[in-house]
């Protein structure tokens, strides 16, 4: 199980206990941060829209999401008549479990000593590392897809078909930008990614992947991730004007709460993954006292900033149309990240080769743009795509 010093020696009862405690702490921390995240989102959006937001339950409305959760617990649990009962009940768990498993990959801090055992502040550090993120994000497609299908009604089905197409499309761009991080790290392990980013350029610029890779993989990753977790502006899955509530229209009570939970868990997890991959994870200034605490604080602060950026997206950007979404994914993000991956690989081999590749890329882009503009000019003329032997109808 990876490079955690805890698991290299003999597996005693204490070691197993520490692992269990780590899992529990991570789970509870994630749940609490979801409660806080929902409150932050409602408050920030209310401020941006000149409203007050939740302010009744607890100080500043802090307990509002807790109250909502309890309300959902006690509501009636409906299972639609025409639904596929087993799959209908299975689907929410297929959304929640991958969200949590992905979070276990994230290194939260350095390493500590508990009960005489040296261990990393991270639930698991498997050798496949970041590939587990890709695997889990492909499993979470099932949650959305099966929820929509098993409801046995048309709006959820439309929402889930949209969702699965969207998530599969953006997974490619996400994978390519992850590949560039893996390329420069030389390892799949998230722990290695973080340790590689320690240190500074010239003593003051942090040695983060954001700068080492150029900003492009990060930009591709943040867009792809937003689409992957179905956050605005890519929330076509639950476009309420068109699809009632999207894939979870038929869900009520605690199962609806599970979908809601999964969405926020995913958002927080993805913020944390972004911090790990591009912003040095728990890296930051380290005063001499309280040595173990500072990395955790830096990590939490960075993750919170990214979560607020997601909220900001929601308040500031209008939802994309479906064809715009597909165009952005397939025609912009995938080519850009593929080209940038080649450039990074060339830079790893030699600098002149890398710059030559960048120049060639610009040349190719110019030629391609010229070709596309010529194509647009010709678009007014009769189509030449008719099959040989068939008559061309110029009016069509």
């Amino acid at each position, binding site marked *: 199980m990876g490079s955690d010093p805890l698991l290299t020696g003999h597996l005693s009862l204490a070691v197993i206990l520490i692992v269990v405690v780590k899992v529990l702490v991570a789970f509870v921390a994630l749940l609490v941060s979801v409660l806080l995240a929902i409150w932050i989102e409602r408050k920030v959006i209310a401020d941006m829209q000149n409203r007050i937001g939740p302010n009744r339950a607890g100080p500043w409305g802090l307990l509002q999401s807790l109250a909502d959760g309890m309300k959902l617990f006690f509501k009636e649990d409906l299972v639609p008549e025409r639904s*596929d009962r087993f*799959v209908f009940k299975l689907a929410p768990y297929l959304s929640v479990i991958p969200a949590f498993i992905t979070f276990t990959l994230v290194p939260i801090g350095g390493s500590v000593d508990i009960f005489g055992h040296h261990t990393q502040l991270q639930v698991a550090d*498997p*050798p*496949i590392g970041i*590939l*587990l993120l*890709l*695997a889990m*994000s*492909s*499993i979470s*497609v*099932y949650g959305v*897809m*099966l929820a929509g*299908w098993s409801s046995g009604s048309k709006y959820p*089905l439309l929402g*889930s*078909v949209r969702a*699965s*197409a969207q998530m*599969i499309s953006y*997974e490619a761009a996400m994978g390519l930008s992850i590949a560039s991080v893996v390329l420069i790290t030389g390892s*799949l392990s998230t722990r290695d990614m973080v340790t590689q980013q320690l240190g500074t350029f010239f003593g003051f610029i942090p040695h983060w992947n954001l700068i080492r890779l150029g900003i492009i993989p990060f930009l591709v990753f943040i867009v792809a991730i937003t689409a992957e977790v179905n956050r605005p502006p890519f929330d076509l899955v639950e476009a309420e004007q068109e699809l009632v509530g999207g894939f979870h229209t038929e869900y009520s009570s605690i199962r609806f709460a599970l979908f809601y939970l999964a969405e926020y868990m995913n958002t927080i997890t993805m913020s944390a993954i972004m911090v790990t991959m591009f912003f040095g994870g728990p890296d930051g200034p380290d005063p001499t006292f309280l040595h173990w605490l500072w990395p955790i604080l830096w990590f939490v602060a960075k993750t919170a900033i990214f979560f607020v950026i997601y909220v900001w997206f929601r308040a500031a950007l209008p939802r994309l149309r479906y064809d715009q979404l597909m165009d952005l994914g397939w025609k912009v993000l995938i080519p850009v990240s593929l080209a940038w991956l080649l450039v990074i690989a060339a830079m790893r081999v030699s600098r002149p080769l890398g710059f030559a590749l960048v120049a060639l890329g610009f040349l190719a882009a110019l030629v391609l743009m010229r070709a596309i503009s010529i194509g647009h000019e010709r678009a007014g003329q009769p*189509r030449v*795509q*008719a*099959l040989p032997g*068939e*008559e*061309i*109808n110029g009016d*069509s």
Partner: protein
Amino acid sequence: MILAAISIPQLVVFVVAVAIVGVGGVGLLAARHTVHSALFLVMTLFGVAILFIEEGAEFLAAVQVIVYAGAIVVLFLFVIMLLGVDRVEVPAFVADRNRIVLAGVGVLAVLVELFYVASGAWSTGASSQSGSLSSGQNLGVLARSVFTTYVYPFELTGALLVIAVVGAVVLSKRLIGRREVDR
């Protein structure tokens, strides 16, 4: 001999994984609903991924889940949902004596083949092409053998996939062109 080589936890993991694979495989065939069959297929793929991990092939396990469970079966489901094949299929199979005998011969042939593959290296060549699986450097070993020893098959496979993609695009474009001409 074989039993001595594995520990109790490994045995438990193996039995559980094999049970998952078995239930998934039988369920895939027995399910009356196409979507349920696809889900059982996912279950089988997960069981195989667990077996890969137990063999020390973590990379293969991850790729198994990402590619097969994550992309291919999702596409199956996609097609099932879009085409609306979500109704119970009526079995059109009539069991007569000839078919039963033929099926039995087929199953026997598969079993014999599996036995040879499992028991001797002469039928498959070397037992493992990319070195010991449990060396912990999955990715490096795999990449080295794909990009050096097997670079031509690898490139050929790539070319084949590109041809398939281009072919699909050309065919669909032709259909659109024809439809617009008809209009």
